[in-house]
């Protein structure tokens, strides 16, 4: 569904992405993991067309994303830090995004919107929201338009346990519905029963891209966090 071919990106001297090659298919829930500054968010932003690679190409359903912006109507995105216009109310924000996206996806998925009870805070201004509430708004928007690809950057950071569980079961449901879920997270325990593939990045380089089953078999560990930890130790040796 998404193909990344030899993508590199530098910010000044910092090499954020170094010849990344990846193929991401639907029906998978793929976690991008790696230390801070390893290029995870940059990679996601490249896929979203927010950052332009210096080299290489990204294909969405075999067409180059730089040539056609319309693929973004098939992508839902939840940013790491939801930055919204301060003096917009939640209701205005949602109605604006709905207006932009409505043509492509007439049937809306308001499940998260309802679970998070956003209806009751529609009049609140974005600047008055707590970090967790912002995350809830971001998550609701990402899933609202039945996009085939859902990109979640640190989705559970800042969410309370109840909201985290709601979001996780939503991710699970959408994955089973045949969507491609791409997420980054630092909290490995959150991912255990959710993720089907792992992409590990370090210093802008792709270290490996494996399915969970293979990863667990390789390392002989049952828990994802332990499997990753043992690989990280092996890698650094």
């Amino acid at each position, binding site marked *: 569904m998404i193909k990344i071919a030899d993508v590199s990106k530098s*910010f000044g001297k910092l090499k954020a992405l170094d010849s990344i090659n990846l193929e991401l298919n639907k029906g998978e829930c793929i976690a991008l993991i790696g230390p801070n500054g390893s290029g995870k968010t940059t990679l996601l*932003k490249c896929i*979203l*067309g*927010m*950052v*332009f690679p210096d080299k290489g190409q990204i294909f969405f359903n075999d067409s180059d994303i730089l040539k056609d*912006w*319309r*693929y*973004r*109507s098939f*992508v839902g*995105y939840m*940013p790491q830090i939801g*930055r*919204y*216009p*301060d*003096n*917009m109310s939640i209701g*205005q924000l949602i109605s*604006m*995004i709905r*207006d*932009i*996206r409505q043509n*492509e996806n007439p049937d809306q998925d308001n499940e998260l919107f309802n679970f998070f009870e956003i209806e009751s805070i529609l009049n609140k201004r974005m600047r008055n929201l707590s970090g967790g509430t912002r995350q809830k708004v971001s998550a609701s928007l990402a899933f609202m338009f039945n996009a085939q690809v859902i990109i979640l950057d640190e989705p559970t950071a800042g969410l309370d346990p109840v909201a985290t569980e709601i979001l996780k079961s939503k991710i699970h449901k959408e994955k089973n519905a045949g969507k491609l879920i791409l997420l980054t997270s630092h909290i490995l325990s959150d991912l255990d029963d959710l993720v089907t593939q792992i992409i590990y990045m370090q210093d802008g380089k792709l270290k490996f891209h494996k399915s969970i089953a293979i990863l667990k078999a390789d390392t002989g560990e049952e828990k994802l966090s332990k499997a990753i930890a043992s690989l990280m130790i092996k890698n650094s040796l």
Partner: protein
Amino acid sequence: MMNKVFKYVMVDILRNKIMLTYTLVLLLISISVFSLEDNSAKGILTLLNLVLFIVPLVSIIFSTIYIYNSNEFIELLVSQPMKRAKIWLSLYSGLSVSLLVAFIIGTGIPILLFEPDKSGFVLILCGSILSIIFVSIAMLAVVNIRDKAKGIGIAILLWIYFSIIFDGLVLYLLFQFAEYPLEKPMMFLSVLNPIDLCRITILLRLDVSALMGYTGAVFKEFFGTSLGILATLVVLILWAAVPLRISLQKFKRKDL
């Protein structure tokens, strides 16, 4: 789609208190100038100098700060199925239209009430075009500078350049080459500064151009003709279009 974003920007700016203050200050200045001067042509002249000073200043500074503050908004829209050009142009037209509305209410209406003749119309036209030109220049500055404080600093410097330094340089050249006939080069130099171009255009509509001596006569010979007016208009439109065009090109390829 465009309308929705444009509408949001418009509503947001028109609710802004600075915009309201700007309109009221312009209104106050215009009305008091016309009430104080017994000769309304002299009123236009006084107003001209104020308009050429205030309008570019407010346009460039307000636009610069507004675009920096809209960073989150832009980021949000860029991840949505929307052309980048549309986002940038919506922002541009939102800023331009609201600055125009403020100018027309603040200065246009008093002029139409007190001095509804040709020079008055030209002043309204010049003020309107200057508003748009300095939004363009602001957008060009913002797209090139990531840091907000630096960007606002550059915007202020640009305004100082167009309002003060440029005239200083012209005067310096005049004194240095006083022995040579400079009327034609002066005409060319004025093209490099939209504020000067507007000033000349309006001054030539007023009787005071007689005070400008031989230069004034040469200027009048060109800028006074319909060809001259057309050329002035084209140059002013270029001053609005070119910076916008470059900023748009840059924005389309900008990492957010």
